[in-house]
């Protein structure tokens, strides 16, 4: 997904749009839509920070900052007491440790394996033919979560298919899948020595089943921002804003790219 946040004092507009193989073109489209929503013209945007996997593919961005820094910035803005952030996205998952001053002190990432990311649940939801936004709620109806023994996404998918054939209830299967993903994420994040407040963000934070599984396995309550999909983009916008403010204070020039949407041909 491509997300855009336009910030002044507070968020003026935010849009979550699709990401596809044509990342650049879609970044343009989502940006245009956000500008429309904010009733702003492109040149009115003072500074643009891009983040995430596609950060280098945003032709109009003035600066690229990683999602680790941006998520942390966005979350600290929303929860000043945050110490541990768990971000579960469709491509990867990560844990971020923050100190009392809101600074990142450590992080861990998984971007090598789909089974450690939201993709795991997407694949299973797809296999079961259940819309992604329903799997979390469905899993909460389970009374006997199934133990999923395969760790690899592909094998787990097969395991789910054969369990289904054996008559295992869908809710129990889904609960098992959520526990399985939560287990891998907790293992990774526990390297950081988890401390309260724990904030869950990213697409995974929209899934109630995952929130439950995570907080059970962490043995702590897990907080979720009102709009978990945009915390990274919010952080990027906040960082951009700070950079401009700092430059203005120090009277240093602000270097920006041209505010035009270039037609991008990829392929």
């Amino acid at each position, binding site marked *: 997904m491509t997300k855009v946040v336009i910030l002044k004092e507070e968020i003026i507009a935010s849009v979550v749009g699709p990401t596809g193989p044509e990342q650049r073109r879609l970044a343009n489209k989502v940006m245009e839509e956000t500008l429309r929503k904010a009733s702003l013209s492109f040149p009115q945007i003072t500074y643009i920070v891009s983040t995430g996997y596609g950060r280098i593919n945003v032709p109009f961005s003035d600066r690229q900052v*990683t999602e680790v820094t941006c998520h942390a910035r966005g979350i600290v803005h929303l929860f000043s007491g945050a110490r541990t952030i768990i971000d579960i996205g469709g491509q990867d998952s990560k844990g971020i440790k923050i100190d009392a001053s809101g600074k990142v002190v450590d*992080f861990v990432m998984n*971007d090598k394996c789909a089974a450690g990311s939201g993709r795991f649940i997407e694949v299973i939801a797809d296999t079961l033919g259940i819309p992604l936004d329903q799997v979390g709620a469905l899993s909460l109806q389970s009374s006997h979560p199934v133990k999923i023994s395969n760790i690899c996404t592909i094998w787990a998918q097969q395991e789910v298919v054969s369990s289904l054939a054996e008559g295992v209830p869908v809710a129990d299967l889904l609960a098992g899948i959520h526990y399985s993903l939560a287990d891998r994420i907790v293992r990774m994040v526990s390297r950081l020595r988890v401390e309260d407040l724990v904030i869950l963000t990213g697409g995974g934070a929209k899934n109630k089943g995952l929130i439950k599984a995570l907080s059970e396995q962490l043995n702590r309550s897990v907080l979720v921002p009102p709009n978990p999909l945009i915390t990274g983009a919010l952080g990027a916008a906040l960082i951009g804003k700070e950079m401009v403010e700092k430059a203005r204070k120090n009277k240093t020039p602000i270097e920006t790219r041209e505010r035009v949407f270039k037609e991008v041909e990829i392929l």
Partner: protein
Amino acid sequence: MELTQGKALSTVERLYQDYGFRARELKGQGEKIIGYVCSFVPLELIKASGAIPFRIRGNIFEPITKGDTLLETIVCPYYRSCFDLSVKDKYEFLSGVVIPHGCDSMVRSFSTWSYGLPYSYFHFVNIPTVCEESSFEFFEEELNTFRKSLEKFFGKTITDEELSRVIRIYNENREKVRALYELRKADPPLISGTELTMTLTAGSSLPIEEANDLFDQVVAEVKARGSSPLKKGPRILIDGACLDHIELIKLVEDLGGHVVADAICNGARDHFPKTDVTLPPIKALSQRYLDKVNCPKTYRANKAGTFEGDIANRFGDIGAYAKEFKAEGAILYVYKYCDPFGFEVPARKAYYQSLNLPMLHLEDIYSAGTMGQLRTRIQAFLEMIG
């Protein structure tokens, strides 16, 4: 990169890119080239036998193919790459290979190397696992066995005088490496980490005298820059096993950091310790290679009785480098399947914490394909400490 490349650094780049071309030339002129892996091989003995030591390198851009038909994939990926290139005949100019007891991957695959490759000379040097009086005695004997084996192969006696002369040449080399490292101390550094590692890697493919000349030229050329054309950025120390390619360092530098210090085999671990010239040569070599090459493979007894004291003793050299080169962050880069380094990750992590030096731990598989994944981690780390 805004660094200018003069004649010396152009030579370095050529030696780095076409690794082994000079050795191939020398072989054509009748010289004998002996390949080696790992910092534990006493190169002075090879040199004193009249041959030219040549460090076998891997190549992260070359997929491991033929090697995997003979060697298990649970072997250290760096070492697998070295083997793969060797069975693919990239080092056809070698007359032989020397492998030390550096780790299980080396020990357990020695037969695979010595039967799988067509060279006429193979030798295994057994390195003790402890540093004690008895292990030094043993190691001296083992070095003499190596010496005899070389003498037999080359039909030439290695005299103590010759060995002492060679030891001095190698010590000069280590001083020149030190001079290269001095160029890292400025902020921003006068020499980039990429240039430095490329220079050392190039050097490990050359006869020692040529490496010495080359290093002198590089030092002169870089000094002539006067002031650094680079932009200031976080100063990074790299810790780990052998990093014989520049890609990781280049990545750090592309992202605005500077690699200014290291504790890696193809760096300080290998090149800093000098041999004591006041001792008889074999004794001196046994002390240098066993005690002064600080590799996790060697068990060092906990003399402090506390964990904090133990890590301060075991990793003290790293802390000293970090201080000397004013590092602001460390990257601990460990290969998958590397038992010696792998088991030290928690202790090293604790050590960096005790230094108040932020550390990023990366586990990798010696492949250009993973650089993209490393990019985000490194950039986030630089943002974190910057």
